[in-house]
């Protein structure tokens, strides 16, 4: 078990594309950290940098006290003592289950007796006791992923890296494995870095979640912090489907650019504050749909889609060219209904303090 530390890590690909920029991130011993972000955000790049498949071009990566990469040299993956689970399980098809799980122990030079015991032990741990001699081809997808997990744990790694490890599984199974994985890593006190594109999974599993975009860390925090107090309009939109509008804030409130949306000062959150140009993020929970009767035409939107949800319906209203995402309880509106959009609460991010990219286009991002 070990902590992880990235300091000022940057990675530029030979073609000149930026993979990572200014990554500063500490993961404590025994912590479960999830990395999320849109595709191309650098989350997999960060994980592969830690695994040793990519070498950062600047900055330092430490596992425990050991510097594993410092921009000039990089310890190869085989010397980092990691366990890693891949999206497509990556079970070696030419070996039996037992041989697969045993391989890291064999490379570590463990004697035969000890290897057999440990294989038995980890297979039991992942719920596959006694399957040592099976051909991996005869296993189901979920079983193969368990074998992959057993293999990753076999040599008592310092860290466990999960690269979309659950994404290839179907829903009910994924749910169950998610629970088991969390229980297992907690009881073993493992430090885990988990890359996923599934926001709900990241929020549900992790002690802390790191949001990446464009190779930069956007925010790191507990699931509660990320959902309650997103640092930028991007994080609010990415994690919570917030509707984002560009505009200006002054003493009286927020005025959107080329859009009838106005939000009075009292509905704006105190944090992070600031005035001037910037972006407004409205969480779906903070949008209310009111009767259109008697309201001004500029305030009325048309329901574009209305999906049933267990505790609240997921409704998209097209309001003056802007798609507003909202979660409403109570009666579900029908597509084509005219409604008035009210904003109960919103967060304003002044231009200087917000994420550099990806927040300027409200319409494009609202449904992402």
């Amino acid at each position, binding site marked *: 078990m070990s902590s992880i530390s990235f300091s000022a890590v940057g990675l530029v690909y030979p073609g000149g594309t930026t993979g990572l920029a200014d990554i500063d991130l500490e993961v404590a011993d025994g912590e479960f950290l999830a990395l999320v972000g849109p595709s191309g955000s650098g989350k997999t790049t960060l994980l592969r940098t830690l695994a040793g*498949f990519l070498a950062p071009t600047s900055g330092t990566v430490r596992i425990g006290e050991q510097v594993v990469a410092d921009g000039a040299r990089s310890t190869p*993956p*085989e010397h980092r003592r990691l366990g890693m689970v*891949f999206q*497509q399980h*990556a079970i070696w*098809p030419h070996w039996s289950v037992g041989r697969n799980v045993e391989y890291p122990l064999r490379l570590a030079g463990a004697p035969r007796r000890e290897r057999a015991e440990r294989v038995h032990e980890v297979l039991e741990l992942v719920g596959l006791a006694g399957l040592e001699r099976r051909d991996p081809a005869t296993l189901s997808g979920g079983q193969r992923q368990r074998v992959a997990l057993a293999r*990753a744990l076999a040599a008592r790694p310092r860290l466990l890296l999960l690269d*979309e490890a659950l994404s290839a599984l179907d829903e009910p199974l994924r749910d169950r494995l998610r629970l088991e994985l969390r229980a297992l890593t907690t009881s073993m006190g493992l430090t885990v870095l988990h890359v996923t594109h599934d926001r709900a999974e990241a929020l549900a599993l992790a002690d802390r979640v790191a949001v990446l975009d464009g190779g930069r860390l956007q925010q790191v925090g507990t699931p509660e912090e990320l959902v309650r107090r997103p640092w930028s309009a991007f994080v609010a939109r990415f994690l919570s489907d917030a509707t984002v509008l560009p505009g200006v804030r002054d003493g009286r409130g927020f005025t959107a650019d080329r859009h009838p949306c106005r939000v009075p000062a009292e509905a704006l959150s105190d944090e992070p504050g600031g005035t001037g140009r910037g972006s407004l993020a409205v969480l779906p929970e903070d949008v209310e749909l009111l009767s259109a009767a008697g309201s001004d035409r500029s305030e009325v939107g048309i329901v574009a889609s209305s999906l049933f949800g267990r505790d609240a319906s997921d409704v998209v209203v097209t309001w003056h060219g802007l798609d507003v995402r909202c979660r409403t309880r109570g009666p579900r509106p029908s597509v084509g209904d005219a409604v008035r959009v009210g904003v109960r609460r919103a967060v304003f991010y002044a231009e200087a303090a917000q994420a550099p990219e990806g927040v300027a286009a409200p319409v494009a991002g609202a449904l992402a």
Partner: protein
Amino acid sequence: MSSSADALAQGPATSGALRGPRRGAPDGVLGLRLALWLVCAAVILVPLAVIVAMGLSADRLVLLLEGDVLEAGRNSLVSALLSAVGAVAVGTALALLVERTDLRGRGALRLLALSPLLVPPFVGAIAWIGLAGPASTVNRAWSEATGGPLWVVYGGDGVVFLLVVHSFPIAYLVVAATLRRIPSDLEQAARTSGAGPWRTVRDVTLPLLRPAALSAFTLVAVSNLADFGIPSIVGLPEGYVTLSTLVYRYLQSGTVEAPLEVVATIGVVLLALAVLGVLVDVLASRSRWQLEASATAPAPVSLGRLRGLASVVTWVLVAAVTLLPLWALATQALLPAPGVPLTWANLTLDSLTRAVTAPTTVTGLTNSLWLSALAGVLCAVLGLAIGTLVTRTRSRDNPALRAVAMLPQAIPGLVIAVGWLVLAPRVGLFNTPWLILGAYVTAFVALVVQTVVAPLSATPLTAEEAARVAGASPLRAFLDVSWRMALPAAVTGGFLVVLTAVRELTLSALLLSPGSQTLGVAIFNLQQAGAYNAASALALLVALVGLAGARLAVRQPS
């Protein structure tokens, strides 16, 4: 609205009755299927059947134990097996280096390494005689210094060496195709488990390549078993006789009585060996595991400090076996006689013009051009029909039809030629060039079927189902959708057939009849007659045309 609906409903045989053929009733596609089976039987199964019938009924199996045949058989078998081992070893090593490491100039190296595929083996043999024959510059210089030549390409070792040079690109292609399908995850999982790059290759990559290597081995061994060009040009001068050169001698010089029956018996033995090869391949593929698509592109393994050295060594070796022979061919073509020193004053285009304008060359070139063009068209049409039928329709006999069409690829060309020779008098084709055309179609239709099948089997059948839903009959859907999709591949395949046939020697040498000599035979005869420089000149042209033509073929989408 109602009037147009009425008009639509006034087709024949409507008014509520269920329309369409009854279950199992013939439709257009079935007709096509029957026709294809007939054609396949005629050009593939019958020639093979007659050779088996004659070979076994003639009761000449004892002949096989005679000194000549036994020795030739042993030479064939040993050279085929050794060259297959060599080709797979070289092809696999090269595939690993080029596809999985950061070797310098990998793209160019790949093209260079594949170029021997475009040079017919007999042309390669002529080129290597210029390079390592007894009268070559290297060997003469070495003899002057030490009293003996460095290495003469004549003899068994030369045959094996040249077979390796000409077949390692095939092994490379087969192995590299599998290598690209191995998910990089499997290798990365080994790295995180603590294996270094070399250990990963040994423990994970190579075992996963084993089925492909075995498959390449049988493919190469079977095709080398009866290669004619290399052993006849390089083996015979030292009395190294293989089955193909023995058969050629029997057929040309009539040293045995009833040569056709003897040759048919030898053909049966070769056929049996080929079937054995196919069986080995099938058994091996049964244990083949499904490799799932990779999530991430494989990152090339860094060779580290060895990178520069490995790059130089690989480049030098590959260039030596690909570019040097072409250079030798060029100098031979431009010099008036073998052994004349290479100086600017001695260079002449005489051999080239003489070779190109000689009447035998002109006949050979004309024959080769029209024969291969016809073969290309026939194979393209037949291959298109078979390839689409077996991939785009559902029928129980699809695997069988496909297997029959692909069968000749696993059979030495010698057997096909002998089959047509045995068949010829019975169908009135004896001593005509049509015989060669028939053999070309038998031997090369598999090329088109293969190019057509590969892209088509990746497309889901819903394409045709959509056409059916849109109102097309089964035959119409087949012609409008399946054929259209397959057409570019079939054109590429046909082009490959032309390229292969125009430079072909084995079939046309054995099926030679008066007035039907091909380009390959013309070059071969020049070489046998001692006109080395003229032979080299023509061979150079063939090699260059092959290299240029392949560029065109590669550009075609396939």
